[in-house]
């Protein structure tokens, strides 16, 4: 943390700051650590997608399909980003299909 509260913005080199999650290896495997808590009136993600299997497969496919992020400080062929967050993949590809089964 900057200890000088009077310091002006440091709009320095992009790579000096943490932004998006680091590049992902080509065949990275994803594990969902725990089911996030959601509002109590909602069915939890783990109930909608037990074991997060569907979400995990969709996410890994998505990462595999990702193009190269055009950033200058990483070799082009080594940079694979999450271009969709896992939560987005869950909404788009899992919840959207399962919504019609909720009673």
């Amino acid at each position: 943390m900057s200890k000088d509260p009077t310091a002006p913005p440091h709009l320095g080199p992009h790579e000096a700051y943490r932004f998006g999650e680091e590049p992902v290896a080509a065949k990275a495997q994803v594990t969902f650590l725990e089911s996030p808590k959601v509002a109590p009136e909602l069915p939890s993600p783990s109930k909608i997608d037990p074991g997060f299997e569907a979400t995990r497969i969709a996410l890994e496919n998505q990462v595999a399909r990702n193009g190269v992020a055009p950033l200058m400080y990483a070799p082009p062929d080594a940079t694979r980003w999450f271009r969709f967050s896992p939560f987005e993949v869950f909404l788009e590809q899992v919840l959207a299909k399962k919504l019609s089964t909720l009673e």
Partner: protein
Amino acid sequence: MALEHHCENCGFDLSKLEQTILYARKGGEARKLHCPICRSDRVKIAALERVFSRAASGRWVRWREGGGAGGASNTITLGRLKLRVEGEIEPLSKEQICFRMVPVFVSEGRLTWPALPVMPEYLDCLDPAQVRLAREKPELFGRVIQERGKSRYQCVLPLRGLKSTEWPTYECEILPANPFAVNAGDAEAMAFRGVSVKVWPNLRRPTHAWRYYLVQAGANSEEGMNLFAQGRHFRAQMLVAPSDADGRPASETLLERIALDQEVGREGESNPTGYVGASRRGRPAWVSVEFYQPVQGGKAEALGGGLLPLRPAIDATSNDTWNLGIDFGTSNTVIAVKRKDGTIQCVAPERGRERASTTLSLIDGGPQTLQRGLDLWPGGEWSGPFRDLLPSELACHKRWIDLASDTVIGNLAFGKDFGVPLRGGVGAVGSDHVVSEFKWLRAVEKDKTALAQRNVVQELQARFLEGAMLMTAASQLAEEEAAPRSVNVSYSFPLAFDEGDLDTLKGAAQAAGERLKALTGADFLFAPPLVDEAQAAAGHTPSDKMFRVYCDLGGGSLEVLVDDTLARNSQQGHSGMHPHVFSSSIFFGGSVYLRSLLGAGEHDRKGSCLMPAMSSYTRLASAVRQSPSGKALLESPHVIAETRKATAERRARVYIGYIVEWVARMLAGVCLEHGRTVDGRLDLSRNRLFTLAGSGAARRWILGANKGPGQKRVVEFSLVLLGNGWGFGDIVRDGMKNVEQMMAQRVYARLSELLRENEALCQQISDGDMHLLDPRLTLDVSFVLPPEGTHRKAAVALGLLGTHHATEDAARFFKKRSVERHGVMGFDLWLNDGSRKIPWYRPFGPPAEDDPSQYDRIQEVQAGAGAAPPQGFPQPQPKAPQGGGGFPIAQPGSAPYAAPVQPAAMPGAMPMMPGAMPGAMPTMPGAMPMMPGAMYGAPAMMPGAMMPGAMPMMGFAMSPEMLVMQLQQQWMQLSMLAAQSGSTPLDYAKPQLWQQLSVLAQQQGLTVERMLAQQQWQRLVQPLMMTPGLGPEQMQLAQHQQMQAVTAAATQRGQSAETFLAQQRWEGLLAMLQPAPMAPMMPFPFDPNAR
């Protein structure tokens, strides 16, 4: 009489010439006659005007009565002179060219009838000037008279070649609407009622350039079905003049006949109630209504009919340019127009009958009371409470799955074969005839697999855009006098689009523009989209809260943009930071909820919540469009089955609930994660929650902002809901006043919970006095309602035309946006590549780029001129890295900087770029690509006295080329100095050149890279400006395309456009930086024999 057969040159009377001349061969043109005395072709023979060849058949005809061209059946006798025609000259009578009976119609309560009783194929037998007059003043021609209690139709026939005094009067009976009634009544009793003949569009000032017209003739009511009474056939056709390249008609009487051949009918019935025809060739001159009766041999005999006139078009052009913004939505489309006075409003054709009708009624038979089937007529009001929603659907008389080819779809006629079902595709109109959600290939894959090819989807989009633009132009031109010369159309796209989706949309826009040019005469310029939909909307709504959160829930996608107001306004220490904190988008629009109501598919009765009659997506979408609210939809007994209402509501709760969850997690990400350096430290100056407050020595970074009279500390988020999908939020409003309030309340609750769950992290986020969970800090989530008179869907289209797109803001905020989506992970993850754990609040994807030039400015103010060149350009003096991450960062105890200085004038678009051009030059350079490391080893500074190429003091700015030349001239000195430092002359010269460029840029008030980029841009566009004949629009377009190419090339190299241009310029200068060419060294002493 002699003057009727004489030579106008010498006066010779040709009738005295005793000779027989072959005047025309069979089927051929007539010979040109010359005077036998003077050889002049100015020969006037009045009789020849009464004998003429029919263009369609090539046959020669003469009037049976009233003419002066008697003689043999193939000879035109002029005294002694005889002109012979191969084949027969047929006698023609007025009865032969006219209908035997003429219909009379009741239109708007009054009787109306055809202006001419002539059969369309004989129109060329009339005098062209009189035919035009009949179009302009039809009341001078046909009329209905009363004779002994009986009505008859009467018309003076201006027969071709006859003098006006010779024109006969044609009189005939009136065709009774009811063929079984006694034909003895008056016109009132015999008139057709409930019949309409209409033309689209209804241009207030029709011009020749507009070539696309639709004509429909048919019944409006059961009474109007007399058109199709037993024993006779009704048909109609339009007569269109062939035209030149500019659309000017070539003739008033030689007209092309275009049949109204598309049947329109009642739902579930095979018998037609009317016919529609389309002309792409120009404005119809006449509409012919015709009745035939069958005769033996399968032929039909003309029974009655007549010609209804259309006012002629005029030859008018304007230099006007329209500016339109189109929000092409998955379910609905909104189009905004910028008027001449600068006001922007949504297009709402014929809204509330206050607006002019886009349909011209030649016969208005009253309201449509027949229950129609597929209604493709493009005239009429649009949908929604403000009548500005155009359904993003295309209906077709044929099944779409039978038309799965871009060529076939491309040949369909808008408004006739296919169109936008403005009045809904209801009842028996099957979903096979309606295609929707074609904005997305992936949605078409779900709905109509046969159409799920990219070229087909592109053609569907192109035809929809074409139709939408035609309807928009028709709406405008129904009220405005001047048709535009060009129309600039801005459009956007959802970030959830992949590259293919975006390419498809661009291709569709281009194809639509080409078609529209041919149909309307105006250049429709669809500029390639530069902003996504959320950003477009963001520009429309100013804010006074710290963050605006734009949530655009459309039919297809949900976009969320978190916009930093302080960064947008360069306030309180946020200057230079890009306003877009997060910008994300998912294919999770309102159609997800709608489809869930259908169950797993259209045949899933178990999972469906719908009434059986509503079991297609098309019908459901139509019902949604007509429903005043989501709650009303749920309560409608015709839509949701009573027993399934609880389930439908439950699905709405889950759908909206997860959207709340997503938004809340993104806002929590803003709070928890921003402003971290690579080593995990929090830089207050980069964290969006902190602002610079106070002044002078008391100026400091504080958490949140001081607001209100009590200077209460607050972190504010303000929700702006956009898009029609929020209508479903109405289902789960739970007593809140509106959906906005409901969303703000729920997002606040979830955001608070998420922050509390991460208490330790929140306590780190502190300004030393207050942390994120401090009770003195207010977390505020408010909302913004749509402006008065507008609605949630309108903001994107309005925003596309907003002034911010034409200003420097566009360059600052829209060109440096993230090219990808950027949000938070949402779930805690573990990745096996390096065994890393990723918390849910971590962002993903590259963010929008900040503007380091503002930081440079601060440094310049502090340290004077000579800011360090950016990375990638030669550094005059290697600097030791500061801070832990190898980048400059303020350290405790370092001399405090002054508070950030607002740039006096942000260097904006390139000077050569038109200000309004969407593709204005990006202004914020990214870091330059790495230059060879050897540069850092060059000496920092030449001794002033020896510095080659030192910038002399002069009263004019030197060009970079002159600087290069100076260095070239001192190459020997450079070489020696380079040898002393162990480097090459070129490496030695580079920093010298850079330093001099810095001084040059400083003189111009620019950074070096900006100056170089501007110069390179000027070099690129200079040839365009020198191109003769390029108008302003073409110039603008060409520059825009040039910028697109630059941006694409820059993106490939991972650079901003400005960096790319600057790099190109720099490399060009380096290429010049070679030893000056010298005379070849000759051996000494001079030997003339030596080579």
